[in-house]
């Protein structure tokens, strides 16, 4: 088998789910910054979301496992801190998947656009942190359900 193209590898990585929010892929999350061949060595550059995100090591392991399963033998993961990860890098596909899953996607105005459950607009902020560092807790006064908001950073 010849060397798979970089585009093919991006497609493979787009099949790897985020370990904490499995409805979106690592590519949707915007943390894969670069994929490049250097001879027979594949270099993948990954940017962490939050410094203390417990998923970081799992993400690295998932990338290695997925690519090994596709037959990539020589692989190096690089950590890139700058430019720092921002929610602007979430793909539109990822944002739509988040909302469908019940997590309000990040919005430029710094708060959720609408309730991901009922679409209501009468929303209130419950807590600056949600179930993971990347989320805040909100509540909808229309359907009275709490929901997570993927906060902007």
């Amino acid at each position, binding site marked *: 088998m010849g060397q798979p193209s970089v585009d093919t590898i991006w497609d493979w990585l787009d099949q790897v789910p985020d370990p904490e929010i499995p409805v979106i892929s690592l590519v949707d999350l915007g943390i894969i910054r670069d994929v490049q061949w250097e001879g027979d060595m594949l270099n993948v550059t990954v940017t962490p979301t939050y410094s*203390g995100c417990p998923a970081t090591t799992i993400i690295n392991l998932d990338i290695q496992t997925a690519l090994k399963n596709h037959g990539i033998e020589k692989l190096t993961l690089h950590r890139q*801190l*700058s430019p720092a990860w921002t929610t602007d890098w979430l793909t539109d596909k990822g944002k739509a998947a988040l909302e469908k899953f019940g997590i309000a996607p990040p919005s430029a105005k710094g708060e959720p656009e609408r309730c991901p459950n009922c679409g209501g607009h009468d929303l209130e902020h419950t807590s600056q942190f949600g179930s993971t560092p990347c989320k805040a807790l909100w509540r909808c006064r229309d359907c009275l359900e709490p929901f997570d908001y993927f906060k902007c950073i």
Partner: protein
Amino acid sequence: MNDQQALFQFLLRMGDNSLILGHRVSEWCGLSPVLEEDIALANTALDLIGQTQFWLGLAGEVEDKGRTADDLAFLRDAWDFRNVLMVELPNGDFGQTMMRQFLYDAWSSIMVGRLIKSSDKRIADIAEKASKEIAYHVERSADTVVGLGDGSEESHARMQAALDYLWPYVGEMFDGDEVDAAMVAAGIAPDPASLREEYDALVNKVLSEATLKVPTDVFYHKGGRTGYMHTEHLGHLLTSMQWLQRAYPGATW
């Protein structure tokens, strides 16, 4: 002390501050007054410990003796830690924990803001990453200080007591020495004293909104960031933080 040794000391100070505060904050896990606060404190602790991995990881590289961030966190003794005294103080009640968090976050937000312009690219990168989380931390801790300070008679009294207790530990964050002079000369980090004006403006604004009275005493405790003398609390903290690695050397998950 040569430049590399000074840089190592500076990185230990940054990493030890976030490590020790991160550990202290993590002590609330499962104990906070309400679930949302429990989650918020645990997440703050995670961010701080994550930042520690960057600072101490780089410290290990600069030292060049093969020590990792984990080695530096778990295999040093109290006299080798370089955190300011304030972060090692016991949590006290929830109000005291949040007051300490605010007094530290305010300093930290200004410090990392300056470090983004560091002449050392590795430090600038860490600062850029950390600054986003710290902006979030300071927003939350300031809101909580205002909410409790300008709250009930009971919460106001507790926040004032927390401020009176913690204020004598604020000054150390602005104390400079030969390490700082070397960092300033190399364009790596600012003179700690140069952060004071911005700090006072931020802190006074929030504390006045919280209806709290800032103590006027100028005396402050010091000895943490130089390692000259830590409080008696650090040893106890390390005993709990380091016991697993001490009891089972080399243990990994």
